[in-house]
C-alpha cells in the first residue's frame, strides 16, 4: 500500500472538525506558506511538484497558475471546481464530506499564491450536505483566524465563499462554471479569451479541481521536490480513484500514480477483484467520458507491457488501444454487463446534459442516443455502427467545449472494441433484449505483436 497524502487521517474520528484537523497537523501549510514563502515561491513549489490537474485534462497546475495575468488594480480570483458530475466519479464529494478542512487549507494557500482576495468554491447543487459541511468548516477556520482579514497577522486577507450551482454537468466546464457563478445561464464561453486573462467578472481567474487544490497542502508541507518523487514519470503524486461497478470492494482509494491496473483491481489493498466471482469484461478508467477498454487491453498495453494507473500508461496506444486517466472514475464491468446498454446509458447522459449552444453537440448527442436506444432494444441495423462512428467523428473537435468530445469518445471506443457485441444485438434482436453477450473474447490474452524483419 502506497503513501497517503490526502486521506492520511481520514479515519480519525472528528477529522471534519477544525480542532481535530488542526491537532493532526492541519493548516501547517498555511502557516508555512504565508509566513515563510512568497506567492511566487508557492507557485514555484507547485511547478516543481509536477502536479497535474485532477479534474480530467491533466494540465500541469503550476503552469496554469503561472499563466494567470496580473494587471494592476484588477482583482484576481481562484475558483474551486466542485461540480463533480461525471458518472463514475465521486472522489471530490468524499473528500469534501469527510475532510473539508483539507480543501479549505488548500484554498488558502492557492489563493495566497495567486494573490486572490476572494475565492469561491463552486459546488453542484445536489451536494447540499457538502455545502453545509464546507460552510461550517469555513466558519470554524474564520474563527480560528485562518480566513478573513489579516490572516495569522501576515496582512493577507481572504474571503472564501461556497456557491451552489443548479446541478448541471456542463457547469463543470470552467467557462460555463464561471457563467453560472456570475448568475447566468451555464453556457460555455467561446475561447479565447481564456479564464487566465478574462474569467470571472472579466478578471483573471484560475479554476482548479477540488483534488488539485487539496494536493497543494502536502506539496507545501513536504516541498515540491519530495512530492515529485512519488509517482512515476510525469505522473507525480497520489491520485484519488473512485472505484465503482462490479468490484468486490468499491470506494475511494488514494493511490500512488504508477500502480499496475491489475494490482488495483485484484490487489488486497485495493478493490480485491470482481464481485461474486465473476470475470472482468471491460473497464472505463477515468469517468464516463474516456474511452472504454476491454479487459485484455486495460491490463496490458498493446505492446504486452503491464498497464499502470498513470496519465501516460493509460493513454498508451492513443485512442486506438488506450484510454485516459481522466478524473479517476474507475468503473469495472463484469461478464454480465451489456456494453451496448452501457453505451446507450452514457449517450443518454450526454444528450441530457448538452447545453444546446452549438449545433454538433446539441443535435449529435440526441441522434447518437436514439440510434443506441434502437440497437439496445433490438431494432438496430448493421449500418448503425458505421453511422454512430461517423456521427461521433463529426461531433468530436467541432464543438465549443469538450462536452462534445466527451460524448463522442465512449461511443466511438465502444464500437471500436466491442463491435461484435453490437452486431450480435442486430443479428439476435430477440435474445439481446433478455440475455447478455457475455465475456466472449474480451479477456483473451493479446496476440503477440509481429515485429517487422529488419
Amino acid at each position: 500500500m502506497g503513501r497517503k497524502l490526502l486521506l492520511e487521517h481520514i479515519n480519525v474520528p472528528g477529522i471534519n472538525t477544525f480542532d481535530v484537523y488542526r491537532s493532526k497537523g492541519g493548516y501547517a501549510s498555511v502557516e508555512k506558506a504565508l509566513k515563510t514563502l512568497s506567492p511566487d515561491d508557492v507557485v514555484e513549489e507547485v511547478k516543481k511538484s509536477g502536479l497535474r490537474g485532477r479534474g480530467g485534462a491533466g494540465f500541469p497546475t503550476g503552469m496554469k497558475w503561472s499563466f494567470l495575468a496580473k494587471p494592476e488594480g484588477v482583482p484576481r480570483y481562484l475558483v474551486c471546481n466542485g461540480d463533480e458530475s461525471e458518472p463514475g466519479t465521486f472522489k471530490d464529494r468524499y473528500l469534501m464530506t469527510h475532510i473539508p478542512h483539507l480543501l479549505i487549507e488548500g484554498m488558502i494557500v492557492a489563493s495566497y499564491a495567486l494573490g486572490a482576495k476572494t475565492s469561491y468554491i463552486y459546488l453542484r447543487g445536489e451536494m447540499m450536505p457538502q455545502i453545509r459541511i464546507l460552510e461550517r468548516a469555513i466558519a470554524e477556520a474564520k474563527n480560528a483566524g485562518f480566513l478573513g482579514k489579516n490572516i495569522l497577522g501576515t496582512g493577507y486577507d481572504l474571503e472564501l465563499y461556497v456557491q451552489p450551482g443548479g446541478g448541471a454537468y456542463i457547469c463543470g466546464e470552467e467557462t460555463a462554471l464561471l457563467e453560472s457563478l456570475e448568475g447566468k445561464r451555464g453556457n460555455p464561453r467561446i475561447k479565447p479569451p481564456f479564464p487566465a486573462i478574462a474569467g470571472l467578472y472579466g478578471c483573471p481567474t484560475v479554476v482548479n479541481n477540488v483534488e488539485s487544490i487539496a494536493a497543494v497542502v502536502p506539496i507545501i508541507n513536504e516541498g515540491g521536490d519530495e512530492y515529485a518523487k512519488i509517482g512515476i514519470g510525469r505522473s507525480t503524486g497520489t491520485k484519488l480513484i473512485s472505484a465503482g461497478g462490479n468490484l468486490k470492494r468499491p470506494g475511494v482509494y488514494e493511490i500512488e500514480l504508477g500502480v499496475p491496473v491489475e494490482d488495483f483491481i485484484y490487489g488486497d489493498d485495493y478493490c480485491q477483484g470482481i464481485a461474486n466471482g465473476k470475470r472482468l469484461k471491460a473497464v472505463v478508467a477515468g469517468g464516463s467520458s474516456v474511452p472504454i477498454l476491454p479487459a485484455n487491453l486495460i491490463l496490458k498495453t498493446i505492446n504486452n507491457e503491464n498497464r499502470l494507473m498513470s496519465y501516460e500508461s493509460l493513454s498508451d496506444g492513443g485512442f486506438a488501444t488506450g484510454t485516459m486517466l481522466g478524473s479517476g472514475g474507475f468503473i469495472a464491468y463484469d461478464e454480465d454487463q451489456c456494453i451496448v446498454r452501457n453505451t446507450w446509458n452514457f449517450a443518454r447522459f450526454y444528450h441530457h446534459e448538452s447545453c444546446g449552444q452549438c449545433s454538433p453537440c446539441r443535435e449529435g448527442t440526441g441522434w447518437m442516443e436514439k440510434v443506441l436506444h434502437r440497437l439496445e432494444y433490438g431494432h438496430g441495423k448493421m449500418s448503425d455502427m458505421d453511422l454512430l462512428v461517423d456521427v461521433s467523428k463529426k461531433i468530436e473537435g467541432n464543438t465549443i467545449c469538450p462536452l462534445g468530445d466527451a460524448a463522442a469518445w465512449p461511443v466511438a471506443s465502444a464500437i471500436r472494441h466491442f463491435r461484435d457485441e453490437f452486431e450480435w444485438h442486430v443479428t439476435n434482436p430477440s435474445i439481446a433484449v433478455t440475455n447478455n453477450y457475455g465475456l466472449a473474447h474480451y479477456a483473451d490474452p493479446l496476440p503477440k505483436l509481429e515485429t517487422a524483419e529488419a
Partner: protein
Amino acid sequence: MKVTIDNISIEVEAGTTILNAARMIGGEIVPPAMCYYSKLQGSGGKCRTCLVKVSQGSEKDPRPMPKLVASCRTTVMDGMVVQNITSPEVIEARKGVVEMLLINHPLDCPVCDQAGECHLQDLGYEHGAAKTRYEFDRRTFDKIDIGDKIQLHMTRCILCYRCVFTADQITDHRIHGILNRGDHSEISTYIQKAVDNDFSGNVIDVCPVGALTDKTFRFKNRVWFTKPVEAHRECQTEGCCGKVTLWYKGEDVIRVTGRKDEYGEVEEFICNTCRFDKKKTADWVIEGPRKVSNKSVINSNHYDTLKPLPVVKTNPVLQEANKEQFERETRL
C-alpha cells in the same frame, strides 16, 4: 497584419476575425455564417458552420491549431495561414454541421415565408446531402404566441442566439430568451409575454431561418414573386435610420424590411413603425430597385422583361426582316 486564406493573402488590421478577413477578400473562400452577425456584439461561435483550419498560427509561432476553429470568433495573427475550401477536413466538418442543423429542421420550405431568402436553405443547397440519415421523429415544440407582429416557429429555429443579442443591444429591454437546455432549448418569452418594443421587429431580419417571421406578411406571397425597392422616409423614432427595402407585389407594398447586404446582414436597423405601419407607397421616398444577387431566387423575378415580342408587320419587306429577327431571338 498579413493573413493568407486559401492561398490568397491580404493585409488586415489587428483584431480582425478570420471571417471578416475572408469577407474582405470575398468570393468562394468566405466561410458561411449562420449565427455570426457583424452588427451584434458577442454573436457567433455557436453554429460551427464557419469552421476553418489554421495550418499556421502566426509568423512567430508557426504551429497549426490543434482543432478546427470558428473563424467568426478567432482573430488573425500576423502570418497566419488559414485553409477553408482547400482543406478536405473543413469541408467534411462543415458537411457534418449542416447535417446536424438539418436533422431536426422540419423542412417545411413550401409553406415557410422565409423560403427564398433563407440562409439554411442556401447552406443546405451548397453543403448538405441529398438524403437524410436521420430516421427518427423530428423535434417539435408547443406553439407559443409572442405577439401580433412576430410569428415564432420554434421547430425551424437553429438557436443562433441572434435575436437574443438583438433584443439586448437594439431594443431597450429583452423579454425573450433561451429556455431549457440541450436539444430541448427553445426561444421563448417568460410566461407567454408578447414581444413588443419599438425595435422588436429586427429579430425578424436577423433570424437566418424561418423561425421568426413577419406576421403581417404571413402567407401573403413567396418572396421571389415580390419586387424589392429601396426607399426611405423621415422617421421620427429615435435610433431608426428610415432606410428600408419595400417588397412590392403589383402596386402594393406587402412587406418592409431593413436593407440586407450580400451576407444577409442588415445595413442599419429600423423601427417597428417603418416595418409594420407604413405600407403605402405614399409614405416613402422611392430610391430605385434593389440590386439582387443573381444567385438568389428572388432574382428570377426580373424588373425589366426581355425585349418586347416581335410585332407582326404588314409590309412584306419588313415581314421578311421580322422573320429573321424572330429566328434570331428564338435561337438565342
